[in-house]
């Protein structure tokens, strides 16, 4: 069977050119300080603001390079004054994506574009493809700038490159924005050099030549392909050069719908994920994990016996449990079932949904904005259950650890962090660890942490053999990561006409931002905002969380003085007398971090407040919209969604509004809550209310690279939003999560998917420089669905997802052994699993 070369292997062998030395500069406009600040200071010291600095690097065929680091930092104008103006919030002026772009500035090194003799162009990207389409978008940038068909552009993953520091980070919907200029600069320099080479060959002036479809053309019509010129265009010494970029008006690729470059590999089963890679000695390995969260191994009582089971080659205790290596993953499952392990309880043993919810509610800081005479308080509290990233590809990695070196192949959004963590775990210098990045089967925040690669490295070291390690699905729910439980309490004072003040107390179980992402925030945000909690409390994890919260939470309505504050429950609180340290749940910055819950609470509150004040829910939002952009998306979504149209009893509309990653977005949904719909039966599935229709409107920042990809990201975010409002959560009981499969953890399935989904992207907004669509779909949809359900039922939910407290509609799989055995009756039961029966279907 034909196997495509794996990205990671490709990346490992690919010739990465030398870094430039003190080469000459080709450009008269390049100043001596250009190396350090060139790209970051467009319009600054460069004579011509359209020129960008880059390099030609010595190599057999032409290699052009550019420094990472954006010229993309834009400041956004704060909201215009409204009836009762709100104070500008931090995120109005400076949001999380700005922080990530800023972080990309001072530490940059080079990314390269190489033209090969076969006419292809290659680039090792320093972002990770997790399904968001970054590989396609970067290929588009190169195709655009070089005038070459996109099929000739090969974008692969660079391995961990420690010299890039925080510039090799994928997160916060910034992947495309941060690469937009540097990748094009390198591509433009490469093309310019090919034109130079052709001009020299033909003895013509470069200005007489044009590039088209991967060839250089002369006026006579004669052509030379890029491949034919690749060697002639190479340089023998590194050189500093400057280039112009194609003006926006000439774009033929950027901004046009482009299908994914990896689509053919995907639909033919050729796309390789980490466990698909050919590496015969790296045998399947799984870990037998503790029955409670972060429990530890006390003793393994039958290691020898298990070691002798069919197919099993090794049994070794590692930090997170007992690793078993076998000929097949099936035999790893058998071995885990046979293992007799004594465990120490985990640090959150005994906790449950209700105990954590109580701790959160008890931890709300007191209100600080008092009511004014003639106003009335309106207060609500909403709880959001634990949830899980649950990418379909679980944590995986291949590791080959030798005495003095290690090589890893895995998906990671922070490969440099992964490399460093693995090195310290193994007791090796970071330089001895090669970390090859592989694209992943989803992330949603999961691959900000390196749980799979760390397990794999430790197991390989202990066993002295290469391993192909994979987490079981049940491991992901029970020991993986996600957004923890949160409670949002909101209070407004109003006089029946106008809202005078608004306060939001948002309390969460500690969210782990880990190494890399968190450090990035700490370093850069404090430097631009001396008032941030982080600046006044350096090193404080609470301040870091509060900073991230402030960077992303935007109350979209003018409701007088507005204050949103995050509080994290981390240590035992006196009120509950608990012994538990809540920093020990396994959490991460899950897709859109706090905002799915923040915005759902916000919009539920706004719906209920509008009702309280006797106002139409749409008109209320429109009138109180904080600025014109919010008003525009609210009006647009109401128009496109036909707000207020007549619907049967039990079917209602809902609206959700949000701004993040430079995009203002609004979502309108129609949800059917009639009993015949809610109680429809899908064997083994949770049905409940059905979202019939979704209209999603978003503003678009300048330079949207791929509208088809943006639409896909929003469509995916919409499904997340539906899940989070209706079905998708983890139940915590006795210090362990109950869910063990996708039928238990109820992420949206086809039976809950609307058959009408309309995504409307507004014309590009020249004020917003760069945006990203990876996350912004989630929160407004989650909010709109929750509101529509409230409106249809005449009573608003105060706990999401709505199914969470409607019982446990599945048989809880044992926690010891920690993973379920595979059934054997698959030939008789398709598509529903054997156990699924109508009785197990329980609807909220």
């Amino acid at each position, binding site marked *: *069977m034909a196997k495509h070369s794996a990205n990671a292997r490709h990346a490992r062998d690919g010739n990465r050119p030398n870094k430039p030395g003190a080469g000459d500069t080709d450009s008269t406009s390049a100043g001596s300080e250009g190396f350090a600040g060139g790209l970051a200071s467009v319009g600054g010291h460069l004579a011509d603001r359209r020129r960008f600095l880059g390099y030609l690097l010595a190599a057999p065929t032409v290699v052009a390079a550019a420094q990472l680091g954006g010229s993309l930092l834009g400041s956004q104008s704060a909201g215009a004054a409204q009836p009762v103006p709100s104070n500008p919030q931090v995120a109005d002026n400076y949001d999380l994506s700005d922080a990530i772009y800023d972080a990309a500035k001072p530490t940059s090194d080079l990314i390269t574009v190489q033209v090969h003799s076969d006419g292809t162009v290659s680039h090792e990207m320093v972002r990770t493809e997790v*399904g968001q389409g970054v590989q396609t978008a970067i290929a588009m940038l190169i195709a655009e700038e070089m005038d070459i068909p996109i099929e000739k552009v090969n974008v692969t993953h660079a391995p961990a490159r420690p010299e890039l520091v925080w510039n090799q980070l994928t997160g916060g919907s910034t992947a495309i924005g941060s690469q937009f200029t540097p990748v094009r600069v390198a591509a433009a320099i490469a093309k310019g050099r090919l034109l130079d080479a052709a001009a020299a060959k033909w003895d013509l002036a470069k200005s007489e030549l044009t590039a088209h479809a991967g060839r250089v053309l002369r006026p006579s019509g004669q052509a030379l392909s890029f491949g034919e010129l690749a060697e002639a265009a190479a340089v023998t010494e590194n050189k500093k050069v400057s280039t112009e970029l194609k003006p926006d008006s000439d774009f033929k690729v950027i901004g046009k719908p482009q*299908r*994914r470059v*990896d*689509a*053919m*590999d*995907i*639909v*033919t*089963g*050729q796309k390789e*994920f980490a*466990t*698909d890679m*050919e590496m015969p000695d790296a045998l*399947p390995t799984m870990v037998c994990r503790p029955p409670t969260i972060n429990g530890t191994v006390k003793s393994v009582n039958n290691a020898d016996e298990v070691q002798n089971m069919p197919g099993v080659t090794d049994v070794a205790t590692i930090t997170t449990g007992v690793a078993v290596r076998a*000929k*097949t*993953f*099936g*035999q790893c*499952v058998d071995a885990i079932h046979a293992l007799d392990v004594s465990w120490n309880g985990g640090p959150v043993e005994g906790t449950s949904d209700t105990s954590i919810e109580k701790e959160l509610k008890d931890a709300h800081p007191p209100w600080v904005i008092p009511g004014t005479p003639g106003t009335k308080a309106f207060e609500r509290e909403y709880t959001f259950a634990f949830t899980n990233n649950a*990418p*379909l*590809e*679980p944590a995986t990695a291949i590791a080959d650890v030798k005495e003095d070196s290690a090589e890893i192949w895995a998906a990671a959004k922070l490969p440099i962090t992964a490399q460093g963590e693995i090195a310290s775990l193994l007791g090796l210098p970071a330089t001895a660890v090669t970390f090859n990045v592989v*694209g*992943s089967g*989803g992330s949603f925040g999961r691959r900000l942490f390196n749980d799979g690669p760390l397990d794999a490295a430790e197991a390989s070291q202990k066993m002295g053999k290469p391993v192909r390690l*994979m987490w079981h*699905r049940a491991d992901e729910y029970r020991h993986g990561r996600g957004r923890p439980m949160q409670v949002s309490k909101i209070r407004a004072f109003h006089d029946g006409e106008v809202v005078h003040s608004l306060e939001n107390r948002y309390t969460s179980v500690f969210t782990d931002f880990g190494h890399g992402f968190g450090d990035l925030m700490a370093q850069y945000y404090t430097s631009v905002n001396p008032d941030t909690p982080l600046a006044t409390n350096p090193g404080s994890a609470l301040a870091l969380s509060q900073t991230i919260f402030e960077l992303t939470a935007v109350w979209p309505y003018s409701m007088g003085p507005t204050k949103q504050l995050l509080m994290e429950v981390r240590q035992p609180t006196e009120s509950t007398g608990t012994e538990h340290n809540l920093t020990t749940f396994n959490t991460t910055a899950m897709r859109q971090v706090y905002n799915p819950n923040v915005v759902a609470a916000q919009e539920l509150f706004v719906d209920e407040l509008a009702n309280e004040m006797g106002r139409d829910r749409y008109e209320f939002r429109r009138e109180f919209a904080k600025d014109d952009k919010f008003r525009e998306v609210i009006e647009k979504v109401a128009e496109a969604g036909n707000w207020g149209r007549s619907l049967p009893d039990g079917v209602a509309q809902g609206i959700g509004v949000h701004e993040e990653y430079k995009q203002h977005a609004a979502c309108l949904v129609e949800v059917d809550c009639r009993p015949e719909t809610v109680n429809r039966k899908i064997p083994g599935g949770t049905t409940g209310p059905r979202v019939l229709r979704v209209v999603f409107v978003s503003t678009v920042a300048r330079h949207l690279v791929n509208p088809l990809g943006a639409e*896909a*990201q929003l*469509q*995916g*975010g919409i*499904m*997340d939003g539906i899940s989070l409002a209706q079905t998708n959560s983890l139940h915590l009981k006795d210090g362990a999560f109950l869910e063990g*499969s*996708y*039928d238990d953890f109820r*992420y*949206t*399935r*086809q039976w809950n*998917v609307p058959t009408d*989904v309309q995504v409307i992207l507004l014309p590009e907004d020249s004020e917003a420089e760069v945006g990203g669509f990876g996350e912004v779909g989630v929160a407004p949809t989650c909010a709109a669905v929750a509101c529509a359900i409230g409106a249809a039922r005449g009573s608003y939910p105060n706990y999401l997802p709505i199914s969470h407290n409607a019982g446990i509609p599945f048989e809880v799989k044992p926690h010891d052994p920690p*993973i*379920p055995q*595979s*059934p*054997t009756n*698959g*030939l008789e039961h*398709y*598509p*529903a*699993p054997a156990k699924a029966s109508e009785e197990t279907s329980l609807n909220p």
Partner: protein
Amino acid sequence: MPEHSFTVNGRQVTVDIEDDVRMLWVLRDVLGVTGPKYGCGINVCKACTSHYNGRAFNPCSVPVSKIGPDDEITTIEGLADTAPGEDLHPMQEAWLEHDVAQCGYCQPGQIMAAVDLVKKVHAEGRDLTDADIDTNMRNVCRCGTYYRIRQAMKDGAERMKGMKKGG
């Protein structure tokens, strides 16, 4: 060790492996056929969906001993060969046309399940409906490509009408 023979994607194979090892691991870990993906191992997520004598099944839940020498297994890698001509299977074409995939991990299973469902409704002499998709397409897509899957399935169903019988 027991020997097991069967056909995978038109190729006769024999593997030496214990009877109870599930077909997903025989395909992936022994034969290196990695198109079918692991997502749960318990017949829930459908990421591993492949075809057993032309009908969908989930190899994670079938021991190799249940597969006999006359049985034909088709995985995503062999799907195109079940359609006439040199090209992709019409459902794969529809998937490309609608640019369905995001991370791509679930998509081999989605396509194999989609082909099976369309064959089933066509055999019943009807067109594919949204209700068919609701009830039968249990495949999880954590990236949330469900809407494009619906569009591609309807398109693919039309394209499959042009296929010769048995395809």
